[in-house]
């Protein structure tokens, strides 16, 4: 890559970054719920305060190191930490870079937007957000948003990516946004691993309207966006029935997996409103609070 084209690409990419961020911020403001102030005692790892023992506290709760300093018995309290960390996985494969017409956003754009907006909301709520896998571990603070955005803008070349299932933080939360067109076994592996580690989360299925409608007729050669898969038909209209059947089956499988692993399944079409999509995501992740 010559320096010129590198510069060009850098410029082009950095041009989209603020836009994406601004868009995500904008979207997040619409949903902002004010869930601050969890600065109170609860289940967590960090020390919060010592308090005298009360009726109803079990004896196991007594902190003996503190109690030995006097006559009163103390209980050590930790800060309440709701989902300590949220791992986000956005499908960056080639199949996501598709929009059926120029007025619709690509699925990748939509997914990125969801991921980033959700991150902003979570960070404002005091959560720690990171990417699934080892690339960007969960951290709090608004600087994390910029790091997230940077990474999310990187595209991957393969057509259908495998959902990340490495380095899952136990009892964390996870949000997976994809079109889930890839191998169902990969998704199963991921969800099984997550369930093993007590990770709960959301599968957010983003589809283009044309993928639901399959309006093709006549002789056609279908190509995946990355160009790795191809299917030729002489009469595309004859395939519609089978295609829709398979798509429905795929959705059923995903729902089935989710219910087994205790995850939630959501479906979003790129021609429907971003806000309602984000709202659904937010409710879904917020609703999981109590169980975490």
């Amino acid at each position: 890559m010559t320096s010129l084209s590198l510069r060009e690409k850098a410029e082009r990419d950095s041009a989209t970054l603020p836009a994406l961020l601004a868009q995500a911020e904008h979207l997040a403001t619409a949903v902002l719920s004010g869930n601050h102030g969890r600065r109170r005692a609860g289940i967590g790892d960090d020390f919060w305060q010592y308090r005298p023992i009360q009726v109803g506290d079990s004896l196991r709760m007594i902190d003996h190191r503190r109690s030995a300093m006097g006559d009163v018995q103390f209980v050590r309290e930790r800060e309440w930490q709701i989902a300590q960390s949220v791992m986000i996985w956005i499908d960056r494969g080639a199949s996501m870079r598709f929009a059926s017409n120029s007025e619709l956003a690509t699925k990748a754009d939509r997914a990125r937007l969801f991921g980033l907006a959700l991150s902003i909301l979570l960070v404002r709520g005091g959560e720690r957000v990171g990417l699934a896998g080892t690339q960007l571990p969960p951290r709090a603070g608004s600087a994390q948003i910029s790091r997230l955005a940077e990474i999310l803008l990187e595209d991957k070349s393969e057509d259908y990516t495998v959902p990340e299932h490495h380095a899952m933080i136990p009892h964390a939360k996870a949000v997976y946004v994809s079109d889930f067109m890839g191998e169902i076994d990969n998704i199963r592996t991921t969800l099984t691993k997550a369930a093993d580690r007590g990770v709960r989360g959301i599968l957010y299925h983003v589809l283009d309207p044309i993928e639901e409608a399959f309006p093709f007729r006549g002789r056609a050669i279908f190509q995946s966006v990355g160009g790795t898969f191809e299917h030729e038909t002489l009469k595309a209209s004859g395939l519609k029935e089978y295609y829709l059947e398979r798509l429905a089956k795929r959705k059923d499988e995903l729902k089935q997996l989710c219910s087994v692993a205790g995850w939630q399944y959501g479906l979003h079409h790129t021609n429907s409103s971003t806000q309602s999509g984000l709202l659904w995501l937010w409710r879904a992740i917020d609703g999981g609070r109590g169980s975490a």
Partner: protein
Amino acid sequence: MSSLGTLGFTSPWLLVALISLPILWYILRAVPPSPIRQRFPGVILLLGLKDKEAVSDQTPWWLLLLRILAIGAIIIGLAGPVLNSNSNTSNNKSPLLVVLDGSWGGADQWQSQIKAVEAELKRAGSASREVAIFQLTLPEPPIFQAANTLIKSLAKLYPTPWQPDSLATAVVKLPAGDFETVWFSDGLYYNSKLPMLNALETHGPVRVVETNAEVLALTPAVYNDGAIEITAMRSLSGQERAINILVQGRDPIGNAVTLGIEQAIFASGDTVAQASLTLPAEMRARITRFEIQAVRSAGAVTLVSDSLRRREIALISNRDGREGLELLSPLHYLERALAPTVDLLHGSISDVIPANPDIIVLADVAKLVEEEANAISKWIQNGGLLLRFAGPKIAASSISRETEDPLMPVRLRSGGRSVGGAMSWGAPKTLAPFKKDSPFFGLPLSGDVDVTVQVMAQPDPTLAERVIAELSDGTPLVTRKHSGRGQIVFFHVTANAEWSSLPLSGLFVEMLDRLSSSTTSLDFPTTSLEGTIWTPQIVMDGFGRLKDATSMSGVPGSELTTLPASPSLLPGVYTSGNNSFSRNVLTVNSEIKPSSWPSHIPISILAFTTEQPLSGYLLAASIALLCLDVISSLALSGRLTGNLRATQAVVAGTMFLLTISTSQANAQQGNTKIAGAASEVVLAHVITNNQQVDEIAQAGLRGLSNALFFRTSVEPSDPVGVNLETDELAFFPLLYWPISPDQPRPSQDAYTKLNDYLKSGGLILFDTRDADVSSFTNNSANGRKLRDLAKALNIPALEPVPQDHILTRTFYLLQDFPGRHSGRELWVEAALPDSKQAEGMPFRKLNDGVTPIVIGGNDWASAWAITKTGQPMLPVGVGFGGERQRELAYRFGINLVMHVLTGNYKSDQVHVPALLDRLGQ
């Protein structure tokens, strides 16, 4: 060139390619439509799916048919099909004589006739035959020559306003030898048609080409029982048909206008249609001709002579207070004698003078107030005839005793004389025969006229030449004096039977008739035309167009009415002395008959069988089919569904191609500007090609339109700039024309349009925009430019706006008309010179209608101009005074638009009290 009926081909061998079409059908059928490549993330779900049917989609039969048709159209189009192919050439190599009637009867079809002649000549030319043209109305010895040279001279042929009836000469001029003849007939019968045919048949075969349209003609209009009767005739008695007869004449100012449209209906099977027209005498007098609408032929025009005009005679006497004695009234006999032939006016002199009668009769009126005398003098100078009768009052008065009264032809001796009475010697005197130079010459004398009392003329040196009738003893009975363009005639007896028996006789009526007809012409009996020479003023050509003929020689009066029209007697208006006579193609009793041909003569109908190449249409059709093919192929292969934009682009592209290929057929496109102007009031400015001036003019009219919208009930839409060359002006009430020294001079057509516009009530506001440096009469650059531009316009006499002009009070009361400059001068059409201020009125009743021109230099548009946001565009003056000036500029603009739209409505005296109130008088 080969041909199938009327269809021929320039290169018929190309049609062999049509054989390939079935082959093409099989090839196209075998090849399925090419696949579309579609990016689709869901392809992974498709992997492994099998098509239900193994056969591929075939190209549907209708798409195949479409393509085959398109290719067939291309092949046939390239083969050069020609409709009405003139390929039926005979092998005749003998010369061809083209005979044309060439009379007014064919004038309406002249273009198609000439086209048919041209086609005939071309055909003869392609068979390399020699040709000649022989126009029967203008017989010249025909010379056989090559067709190509003759075709060039076709444009020189024109129809004549006479029929080819003097053919004795024409037959002689026929060339010797054998030749074929094609006779283009006008469809009218005339006497020498058959002899001519016989003469031609001796030389060879004769074909006749005749129009199947009927020939229409008008006979001269006749005035009968208060109505004008016009008779239209047609050559063939066909279906019921209505024609419109246009009544052409002048408006009161003198411009040519159509005064009315009258419908005449030919009943089915009838060849004559009548139209009857009742018009007020004043309007009748302004008719110049009748013509059949949309027929260009001299026969369809009939010029109107003065015979339609009834003379107006005003009778005045000063006999008040003598009621009941009808038979003694000085006017009684006059009334009885004149009433059948003229319109009589009664009233005082000041009442009748404005009606401008032809004759004013003063019966025994001695004294006239000075004002009346002046009015009458002026009227006589303009051609009036003052007819005075003597009577007791004149005899008793001292009028014209010492010096000749301007309103009397001779001096009178006091007292008068009385002969043949009981107390006098001698018998009553009788009339002497009229002398040759007398207007009464030729009237038969009846013996029963005698004169008992008369007033006597002083024997002056001029007396002899002024006497036009005398008594048997030589004393003058009627004297006459010319004065200006008019004359004064004095009867030395009374108008009643008191002094003589003249008023009781038939001679009196005839004398009055002669006198009244000498002012303007009457329908002359043929005898009175004897020995006179009539010179043509205006003559008609074969198309019925009028042209000036003052350079042509005169025609003896005896031939004027009797002979048919001929090269030396063109239909037109002829004058002799003060009389005028209109000679038309048809006379009152003439008829038109369709031509009849012997049965062995082949007659073909004159039709528009010009060669019509069809290849353009076929190629256009094939493009259209291919475009259709593009769209349907796309639709078929599913490419139309995916991307909406692309679909639109394809459809738009094909439509564009289609419109290009069919744009030959309809080049006319609607003009939204015109449509807008026609439905709303729109102010317009002339585009000067000086961008700054045009912008300011546009902004100025926008400002004025806004002001009108806010302040008045005139709600104009956005102003437009008009291009004088291309735009129709008729819809704009007002044209603002800023003058800049560098603007181009409009073309002749544009000037015609502008003159029509002015005539039909439009107003042009010329703005030289230089009132700050120059006054209107000075020689500024803009002023010179204006003079140059306006040279070709019909501009009436102008004057600076008078204080009481209608512009000063159509909406606002204004004294001056500032724009960005506050020059004083604003020029408008001059008021008629005789407009007077009525007693007690603050202003005069000025001329009717709208001044067609307003000229000034105050740069109004700059004062009116506003930006799009409504702010004034240019500064006017300084401070409050400047704003006041801008306000006055707007008021001037509003007044002007109101003036255009309401005319002289505000001049109506109804508004006087309110205006007086506001003027504080």
